[in-house]
């Protein structure tokens, strides 16, 4: 074998809920140090695919392989133990908990002995702050701050840093930039690149083509539960990808005509 086996691979995976088929014959591979961008419009089956990858739903048919060996996840905890971490749109953290406490939910560091083990706040705060700062978010310096007081981008960063700290090998990012402003989104994209640099396999789910093109090595477009395209960086233009996502319609053409209209009307969009 000349090349290392992909960290995570799907082979011909189908998923149906009762009579409804949601995913059809999905085959995907993610390698260490690569970002796979999963593109798709709303309702294309992205969430179901993520949940299948994260062990929430077992596939109806087909198989999932990790490091070239078939695996069966008994649940999200099992997938997590094997190194698959999912970070949701809002960071999946607890707004009214402190940074240190939320970082260690479920794996609290303790000091003391026997029944008198107490939560080690100082240690938790130190490790959490250090982990986030190592991703370049230096504004977070106080582990007692509430997560709810952080910006959207900082929350995402915290969640990603947490996943990496606890040994994630595959990072599934579910629309991490969807609710963010331009500047915040660029923070998150930088963190995605940092995770990639550290050798993680990243699955980046988005419907913002620009964000995908900024970090992706490898792209997959999902339409109505099937893979409509699977290509590598530089093989397609932004317009082509947008068209694909919209189901082959001339979305890019529409966008272009909108732009021309706005140019000729002092930046105003056409009235509806």
């Amino acid at each position, binding site marked *: 074998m000349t090349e290392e086996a992909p960290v995570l691979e799907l082979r011909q995976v189908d998923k149906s809920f009762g009579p409804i088929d949601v995913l059809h014959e999905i085959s995907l591979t993610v390698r260490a140090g690569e970002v796979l961008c999963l593109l798709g419009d709303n309702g294309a089956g992205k969430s179901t695919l993520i949940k299948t990858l994260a062990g929430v739903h077992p596939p109806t048919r087909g198989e999932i392989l990790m490091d070239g060996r078939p695996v069966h996840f008994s649940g*999200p*905890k099992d997938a*997590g133990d094997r190194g698959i971490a*999912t970070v*949701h749109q809002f960071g*999946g*953290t*607890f*707004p*009214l*908990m402190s940074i240190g*406490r*939320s970082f*260690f*939910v*479920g*794996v*609290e560091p*303790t000091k003391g002995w026997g029944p008198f*083990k*107490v*939560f080690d706040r100082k240690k938790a705060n130190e490790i959490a702050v250090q982990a986030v700062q190592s991703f370049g978010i230096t*504004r977070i310096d*106080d582990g*007692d*701050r*509430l997560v*709810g*007081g*952080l*910006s959207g981008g900082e929350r995402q960063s915290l969640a990603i840093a947490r996943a990496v700290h606890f040994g994630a090998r595959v990072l599934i990012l579910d629309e991490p930039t969807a609710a963010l402003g331009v500047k915040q989104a660029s923070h998150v994209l930088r963190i995605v690149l940092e995770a990639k640099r550290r050798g993680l396999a990243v699955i980046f789910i988005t419907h913002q083509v620009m964000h995908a093109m900024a970090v992706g090595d490898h792209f997959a477009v999902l339409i109505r539960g099937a893979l409509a395209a699977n290509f590598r960086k530089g093989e397609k233009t932004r317009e082509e990808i947008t068209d694909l996502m919209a189901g082959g319609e001339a979305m890019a053409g529409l966008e272009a005509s909108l732009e021309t209209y706005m140019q000729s009307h002092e930046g105003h969009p056409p009235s509806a």
Partner: protein
Amino acid sequence: MTAGVFRGLGRFAQRPETGSFVGLIVTYAFFAILGGRLFLGAPGWSSWLNMAAEVGIVALPVGLLMIAGELDISVGSVLPAASLTVAILSGHYKLPIALGIAGGLLVGVAVGFVNGLLVTRTRIPSLILTIGTMFAVMGLTLGFTIMIAGSTGVFIVPDPLTKALFGAALGGMFQVGIFWWAGFAAIIYALLHLSPWGNWIFALGGDRDSARNAGIPTQRLTIQLYMLSGFAAAFVGVMQVITFGSAQVAAGSSFIFNSIMCVVIGGVLLTGGAGSVIGIVLGTMTFAIVNQGIFFSSLNPDFGSIIIGALLLAAVLSNDTFRALAMNYAGKKT
């Protein structure tokens, strides 16, 4: 320098008990002025501390449940159920009192277990579900009491040691329950704020799915919390039956709203995820001071509930304000 002061203020405002502490001071001062020396002296203190102890023991675990995002209404019927279990076992059947107490506490834990099981296995909101179990327990209590004892009240004569442990009054005024309350508060403080288990409770109330994904046994935790509140309600039931020497079927319903009110005045977020044990204790004190202080003041006690209602609204509003402060302090640098 000023940054340091602001940081300190931020820390102070960030603490969930800050609002309830301010509320307690204001309320106490208000009734101290109206109630005069009698309220400031031992009669005043014993009167509100006795009440605070009873409702406080129930409010503590109800508060934990609320932090975890659940409610428990059934405490109102667990309390008389436990009282009557003790009275029937040890009063009617003349079994040893220790057995009666164990039976009473077991009833509470069992109802809690059923509550927890139903809440985790169904999708019924815990508010509705525990109203259901409350009525079920109420019916069982009434039915069995009439069937066994033939009346709605059962008498019991506790031995002096038991009476001293659960029903004594120091100086004829301060009930021993005050010390039990302090003990409960210390243990629950350690559980919520010091042990890792407490972190799970906050996480559960903050975001159930994320908590589960983080590997927290959310179902087991919920069941444990309901068993704890069942135990606490039963414990107060046991104290009451030993203090008064009798158990009544109709007792306990006041604990439903009172316990929830103490918790909310204490700064616990109704939807879960935030709160503190010190806050719950302070909230309970405030509630009891209003409740009892009215009798020491020249105000017409018939209108006392108005103050309690106003206090509750003020507490919720100030809690929201303090929470917003806590979220935003130091978050302004962007």
